[in-house]
């Protein structure tokens, strides 16, 4: 073999290695990447996690006393559903969180959007907003309990205190970022300030405001649960707190999983609302580039 031929062969081998090989996804991969396929994989992963947990407890690798066990959790869940205490606790926490979310988010958003009307007032109150926002709102919980009692109202109030400023800051920021050229265009058409507010400010802040809903639904749940931790007779926070002080880990897990479920459902409700309210933002994923 001549050296020339050798070189050629080497080059051919190199290029075969270097050439990007783009394989078409196989039949299995394609079947997996469908709604049903993904759901199946997710369900299997959850089942495997619980099975491993149960096995680890039964084999003695983990202490049930400290981590609970899936079968135990299920027994507590079934009993609490049967005697009706779990639905009542869930209902309490859910209503506290939703009321806190609605009141806090509505007040905050309206105030934030309202600040668009006056640059003077906005600049005047800005340091106060920043100052109040820098207080960790959870630290207000004891005062709120003092003011609003140990019942239902204090949990709603705590959720409001957690959500209102987030909403205010998000709405005000979004209103400030609204396209000034769109406002100028309407002004040139002779629009009043109220008209510009309705036709430009409100619609252009909606995406940011709905994005903030996702954050606030989580904060509202935090407010409700922390309020229940401090003092309460009912609710998932109450359930978790009392059970953990009795080292009843299975009941703690029941409370946590129900909370997770509640948060999950609320998040998807907002997702659904977003698609209905902002049809102009929906992008088709059909044109997305595969990387």
């Amino acid at each position: 073999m001549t050296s020339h031929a050798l070189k050629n062969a080497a080059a051919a081998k190199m290029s075969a290695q270097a050439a990007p090989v783009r394989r078409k996804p196989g039949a299995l991969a394609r079947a997996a990447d469908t709604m049903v396929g993904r759901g199946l994989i997710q369900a299997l992963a959850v089942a495997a996690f619980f099975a491993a947990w149960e096995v680890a407890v039964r084999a003695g690798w983990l202490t049930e006393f400290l981590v609970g066990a899936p079968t135990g959790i299920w027994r507590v869940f079934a009993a609490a559903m049967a005697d009706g205490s779990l639905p009542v606790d869930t209902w309490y926490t859910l209503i506290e969180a939703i009321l806190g979310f609605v009141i806090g988010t509505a007040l905050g958003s309206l105030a934030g959007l309202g600040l668009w009307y006056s640059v003077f007032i906005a600049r005047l109150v800005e340091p106060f907003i920043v100052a109040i926002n820098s207080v960790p709102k959870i630290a207000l919980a004891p005062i709120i309990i003092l003011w609003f009692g140990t019942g239902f109202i204090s949990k709603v109030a705590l959720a409001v205190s957690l959500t209102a400023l987030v909403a205010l800051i998000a709405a005000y920021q979004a209103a400030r970022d609204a396209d000034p050229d769109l406002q100028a265009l309407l002004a040139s058409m002779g629009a009043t300030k109220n008209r510009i507010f309705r036709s430009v400010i409100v619609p252009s802040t909606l995406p940011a405001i709905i994005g903030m809903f996702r954050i606030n639904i989580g904060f509202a749940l935090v407010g409700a649960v922390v309020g229940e931790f401090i003092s309460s007779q009912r609710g998932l926070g109450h359930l978790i707190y009392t059970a953990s002080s009795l080292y009843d880990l299975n009941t703690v897990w029941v409370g946590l999983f129900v909370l997770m479920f509640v948060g999950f459902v609320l998040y998807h409700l907002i997702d659904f609302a977003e698609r209905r309210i902002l049809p102009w933002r929906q992008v088709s994923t059909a044109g997305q580039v595969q990387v």
Partner: protein
Amino acid sequence: MTAPKVQLSLRGIRKSFPGKAGPVPVLDGLTFDIYERDFVSIIGPSGCGKTTVFNVIAGLLEPDGGTMMFRGEIVPGLRGRVGYMMQKDLLFPWRTVLQNVMLGLEMKGVAQGEALDTAREYLSTFGLSGFENAYPKTLSGGMRQRTALIRTLIMDPDILLLDEPFSALDYQTRLYLEGVLLDAVETFNKTVVLVTHDIDEAVALSKRVVVLGNRPTKVKAVHDIGLDARSPVGARSDPRFAEYFHTLCGELDIQTRARAA
């Protein structure tokens, strides 16, 4: 030919903006007339305050001094009487094409049903039937700008203020939309004031060109453009086109020839 009637007259308009070291004068006694059914282009070096002139005419900025007369009456600005169009199409992303076009009619308080009929009629005149319910982001740049033009025309404004409306488009789309504009202006008997940095566009479209100087800005010269062809391509093919083009380049101190050392 009878003497043209003055529609809008700017007399000694002055405007300055606050800067770090005191006010920065931008417009320094701007004076020019716009006739009825005129097509005036305003050209000038970049940053000379062309857009400021517009905002003053539109009534979005209050001048520090000078007067503005509309058909013989002193007016503070022409809010609600101008159609304003910019380089950005400024379509409302949350409104469909139809709703965007109806915007100006809504502002005027036209009844919903009547506005709807008028909007549909305009859309079909300008070849956008079938796109009524499309959102702006699904349209091409040319279609978006065409929608913006319809939105401007449908309000039946006294004066169209166009601020580099076509400068973000590719050349073919631009020629096409220039033609649409000229036809529309002819059909609806409109007065147009066009701000552009594009001398070529100014010569091809205008009846007159106002040349502004460097900041603080005054009117440097006003040129009548006597091209007969009233189409964007026809005007550019006219033998006198190059002459006007050359003169205006000279006015703007653009070096048209590499200087020999």
